[in-house]
């Protein structure tokens, strides 16, 4: 599918409606059935897809509204990971998940999510998965006794799943690894694990690294210097980083460490409710263009829109698209 120059997309999640939060929690309280919740998720996902289309995005996600959080959706699917379903009262809480033996390789059953998305839009699509490094930080390990070893086995299982997704038609895959920023010392082994994860996966792979968005607030502070030059060893096509909230200072790393990576530049602050103007978005894109050429740049929010109210998320995305169109004209797109 042909994309315009400076394609626009989301990081993955779309605004989680308050009513859906309540219904998800009702499910944990056993007041609605799994079947009912699945139907609710389908309806909410359709709305999220439609909103992204109307906002004018070039690459659409399913909004990730089926996911309680970025960990549990994968933890409860990973074969060999035991999740205590009684361990959360609010849907957004994390399960107590534990690994007690070597992980077998089996499907995570994510393909259905992709097929649902693909059936509802003619736009290009992307599929996002939480990376092994982030997962090992939230899954108790009683077997491997070594984070890299557990992460590597998770990567092997998920590599199988990514290939399944590609077979089903996925062309853009995003690996979400926010915990790198909380544990920068892990990054060298994180890249080894990442390479295991994407080995032989025939899709455009981007890595999303932010400073956390749990409850709509950052989990860590710092800068992206720790990513370089190690990230250049990762077998990925691009990275998506947050710059709107933190400012564009770290963009100069792309000049300091010459590379061929595509950059998904975060131009929308997802931790504030004020809607950026198209002009401000354009200004942020222009700044990124000083470091990365237009043909390697794509445009998206800093992170998922999960915690933004629906109207704010929608208006921010619309503004992002309008701001991008301003710059496209300037670069002849």
């Amino acid at each position: 599918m042909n994309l315009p120059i400076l394609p626009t997309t989301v990081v993955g999640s779309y605004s989680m409606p308050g009513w859906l939060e309540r219904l998800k929690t009702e499910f944990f309280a056993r007041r609605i059935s799994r079947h009912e919740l699945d139907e609710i998720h389908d309806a909410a996902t359709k709305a999220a897809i439609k909103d992204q289309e109307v906002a004018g995005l070039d690459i659409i996600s399913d909004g990730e509204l089926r996911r309680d959080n970025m960990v549990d959706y994968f933890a409860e699917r990973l074969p060999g990971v035991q999740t205590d379903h009684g361990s959360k009262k609010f849907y957004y809480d994390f399960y107590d998940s534990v690994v007690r033996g070597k992980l077998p390789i089996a499907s995570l059953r994510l393909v259905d999510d992709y097929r649902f998305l693909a059936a509802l839009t003619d736009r290009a699509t992307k599929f996002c998965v939480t990376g092994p490094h982030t997962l090992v930080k939230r899954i108790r390990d009683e077997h491997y006794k070594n984070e890299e070893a557990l992460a590597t086995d998770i990567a092997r299982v998920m590599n199988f799943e990514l290939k399944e997704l590609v077979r089903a038609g996925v062309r853009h895959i995003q690996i979400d690894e926010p915990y790198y920023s909380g544990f920068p010392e892990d990054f060298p082994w994180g890249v080894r694990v990442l390479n295991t994860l994407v080995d032989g996966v025939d899709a455009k792979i981007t890595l999303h690294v932010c400073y956390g968005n749990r409850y709509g607030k950052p989990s860590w502070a710092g800068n992206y210097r720790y990513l370089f030059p190690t990230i250049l060893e990762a077998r990925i096509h691009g990275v998506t980083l947050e710059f709107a909230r933190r400012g564009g200072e770290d963009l100069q790393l792309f000049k300091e460490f010459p590379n061929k990576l595509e950059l998904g530049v975060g131009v929308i602050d997802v931790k504030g409710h004020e809607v950026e103007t198209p002009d401000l978005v354009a200004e942020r894109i222009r700044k990124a263009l000083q470091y990365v050429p237009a043909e390697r740049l794509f445009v998206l929010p800093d992170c998922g829109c999960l915690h933004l109210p629906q109207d704010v998320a929608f208006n921010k995305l619309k503004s992002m698209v309008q701001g991008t169109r301003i710059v496209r004209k300037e670069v002849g797109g």
Partner: protein
Amino acid sequence: MILHVNNVQPDRTARASSVVSTLIALAGEGKLPPQVLDNLNVHLDWVQYKTNFREAVSVRRATKGDELLPWIEVGVDLRQVREETLKEEFVRALNGGASDPAGSPERVYFEPFKPLRSCMIWDFNRLFWQHLPLWEKAVGHGFEKALPTGQSDANHPAAVKDSVFDFWTLLKDMDNQKQLPAEIFVLEIGVGTGQRAALWLDCFRDLDRERGTQYYPRIRFLLADYSFPILDAAQKTLRDHRELASFLAVDALDPFKSLSFLRYKVLYIHLTNVYDNLPTDEIVIRDGQLYLVEARAYVSSAAAAPICEKFGVPPGEFSRTVNRLVDVSPQHLGLSTLEENVGFWRAVWDAIRLEERFVSLEGISDVPLPANIRPSQLETFMANAASNQRFQLSSGVLESFVNTIPLLHPRGHLQVQDIFVTELADYPKIFRGPGKMDGSVVNWVNGALLAEVGEQAGYDVHFAPFHYREGSRTSILYTTHRE
């Protein structure tokens, strides 16, 4: 008639008994008509503060739209009642004009009914902090003398020392992980005399020197208050740390408005006795139905007369003069001298009371919540509420909290020393305000609701007793990041 014995202190059982016998006597004498008796709910309360806004016996009526509901609530403050006048108080209260828009002829009203957070006592509260030197000069002592121990727990040396040690440990840990920012922001909201900040910085400087860590010069200590006299006094107290202390006029209800440039940058935010001084609404549940408490400020005619006489205010001008006081400040009230103006202010404050009524709400979505607080959060909090319950919404505290936490660095924490009700079920035990603390208002804080709001904002809210002073009612709230 239903009698609700919410709280009886062991040494007040005789008074509680006399309330019951008085009520029975009144019924027997036919002074409680059957239609009143059938709808009467009497609540025996223990009001936390010796000086407060209630009469010994007060009547609260409920309204739904324009309709006056038949049930009548009578609140009895066991702390104030006198056995010898009890019968008379009941008769007067039940025959008074509570909830009548025109009110009782025995009272001089200063305003119409308003939600509690908007009524005039909060104007007086503002007046107190903004013109504190005038009040302190008139009473002959500093405002902290009005506290139960005559001084603020904020300045307790051991508590400050522990706070400093904990903070230094955090900085050291961040330093070890190469995450320590170049500038280390600390924020104190509600600075008092500045003594705590000075003590904290003295302690921090000493510890830093002892450990050789060089963190002290990187501290940016921000002292925030909405009272300029308070900030001026604090600036003098902090003269030894002037290089790193800044004094900012900040509204405690919305610190983010003034300090948005520090979003996610402040590593430690501290407040002492600020939350108990922020405006709040109150919610009443009666037989499962929700009501908002509305109030109007008044002074009884009996109390107004000597005030008018003493300060030369014509009785017909009394209400207007009180309104002018809160509008134009004591300096410009226009009595014969400034001392007279302040004297009038103090006398009115001493005599001021609140008449309450309950306004029926359709449901939780009608509860006036601060922006950024969702009705579902209140709903979760109220899930275990009893069918008869009254509690503070702590509106100002919630507003302040949600407008403060975006300033916190991902490794930062908020610490609040104050008086908290940490369980909804604790509310009926004692009525927790509002009370008068010298010239200001004081309320307990609904810590249980605050914890609910904190949880959904990504912070676990914990309460620890203030163990540094025996018998202290203060708790220490601190936040941790919720995983």
